[in-house]
């Protein structure tokens, strides 16, 4: 199933330092026909965004090294749609980021159905 949609689905970058979360999210998104890349930290994510144009970024706000907000601030144009994941209650910084760059915020643990619908919506709007 992955292979069938691999070449023409929307490009999604999953950024999370937790391997379990990262891997399961990649698997789920691939199952739903997206082309998925992943990065374990902000630095790698930033390099990936520079290298390739993504339709959607699904990114944890808290990352080792550069955090999600810092990556967002330096991202080139045209920026991908960003879905930010957070395990924390809303903070002022998150609110500011949400207003400036973010398509949606997902509180962990989130419903996969909602995550999938947001990713679908973001990639559809992008086209």
């Amino acid at each position: 199933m992955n292979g069938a949609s691999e070449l023409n689905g929307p490009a999604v970058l999953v950024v999370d330092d937790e391997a379990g979360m990262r891997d399961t999210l990649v698997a789920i998104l691939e199952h739903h026909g997206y082309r998925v890349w992943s990065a374990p930290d902000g630095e790698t994510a930033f390099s990936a965004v520079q290298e390739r144009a993504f339709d959607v970024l699904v990114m944890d706000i808290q990352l080792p090294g550069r955090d999600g907000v810092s990556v967002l601030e330096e991202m080139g144009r045209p920026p991908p749609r960003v879905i930010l994941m957070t395990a924390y209650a809303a903070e002022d910084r998150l609110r500011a980021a949400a207003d400036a760059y973010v398509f949606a915020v997902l509180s962990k643990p989130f419903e996969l159905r909602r995550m999938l619908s947001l990713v679908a919506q973001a990639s559809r709007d992008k086209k």
Partner: protein
Amino acid sequence: MTGSNTPRANSMTGKWVKRWPLRPLSTVILLVLAAVAAASSLITQNVIADQERLILREQTAEVAAVVGSAFAGAQSSLQLLGEIARSDQDRPQLFANAARAVTTASTQGWLVTTQSGTSLRVTAAAGNGPVVGQALSSDQGTLARRALSAKGLVSGLVRDGRTLRLAFALGEAAGPGTVVWQESAISPTTPTPTGPTSPWHSLNIAIYLSDHPDPSALVVTTTKDLPLAGVQYPFRVGADTWLIVASSPKSLVGSLGQDMPWIVLGFGAVTAVLMTAVLETLGRRRDYASALVEERTASLQSAIAEREAAQANLSRQENMAAIGQLAATVGHELRNPLAVVMNVLYLMKVGSEAAANDPIHRHLATAEREISAATLIVSDLLDYAAGRGPILAPVEICDLVAEALSVAPPPDGVQVVQRGEPQVVDVDRDQIRQALLNLITNGYDSMPGGGVLTVSTTSVPGSAQITVTDTGMGMDEETRDSIFTPFFTKKTRGIGLGLAVTKRVVEAHGGTIAVQSMPAAGSSFTLTLPVLASMVSAPQ
């Protein structure tokens, strides 16, 4: 009748109580002192009256002594005249001369009578009275016989035509069978006032020739107002008993003595009033002081209680803060693993090649539901420990309800029904979803034997309502009153924060939560949320 009497009596008593200005102790003191004053006044009055009587008696005795001594003089005069008459029987002129020498008043008469057989006749005479040879009157005869038998001075009143005479007769003074007399005309009913120089001029005096105040025996009086009410003093005159009756029209102890009872009464009354006033003042001051002390004590106690409560509150807050910190840390660390497991369950479900009726799907649903319950507990705990204000965004609530229902699939035997038209409300999606999840999982838990869970959304003016109804065991009133209290739970699992957090979330949205429930008749929770974001004053 009694019915109409009682209220009036009560109202009178009430009026009396309202008007009476003294405290009971002061009242008693006032009454006691007033009684003492009255008693002292009465005693003084009695003492003064006794004194008065004593003085009157003394003065009366003096009068009696003076009168008695005057009559004693009369007796010796009669004795002397008797001797003269005896020695000079044939010369009455000598007697007459001697008698004139002792005469002190023109009305006085002197005579000697001699018994001859049964008759008495005058054998010598001088002054104003019977003459020699004259027979005696019956009064005189009676007196003469008494004088002879008494062999001493006797006295009596002798009526001689219109004239009344006071007669003293001394028997045997001029030899056997003789009586020597002195008579003087008197007019007893005409008052004889005492002169101003007399020591007894303040007294009213009546003298009787009798041992009782017999009007016919009156000899002399100083007043017309007879009989006198006063001291009776009998005294001897020769062989007879006379009586002096004396009274005092004016006070004998002086005006001060007369006024003394009133002075005592007045002084006592003034003392009573002053003492009462002083006691009342002191009493009121003491009452005021003790009321003040009570008030201060009470305010001090309440201040202490407040401080203790504040301290307890502070330490509870500190405890809660510590618990909250711990809960936030643990909860946060649990979120990721729970989310990963949820993802894995999803992958297993979509990747499973087992047939739709394979039990593996039921097991996966159970695992999903349990992970969802665990996640909800963590979320409630985090929210309770560090609740945040809602971040409002337009949300279609039917979609939100569907999402919540999909997260927590119903257990076996429970049928889920969702009703209602789509409508958009400004809410914090995560918070309201958490609230709905709490209500939905509570509904599942109340139907262990299966049932129907209905989630309906309705539109009311300005608000949206979401009602979660189950057909489960329901609640009694006591439970219903406690369900929103944090850490209250009747379930075997859960920590009792679900409904407390739900209520807080809904109220932070400016909404309300209502519950209807009866034992064995299911429960129904209704969330009412304002549609407009501007209606919410969310805490930041």
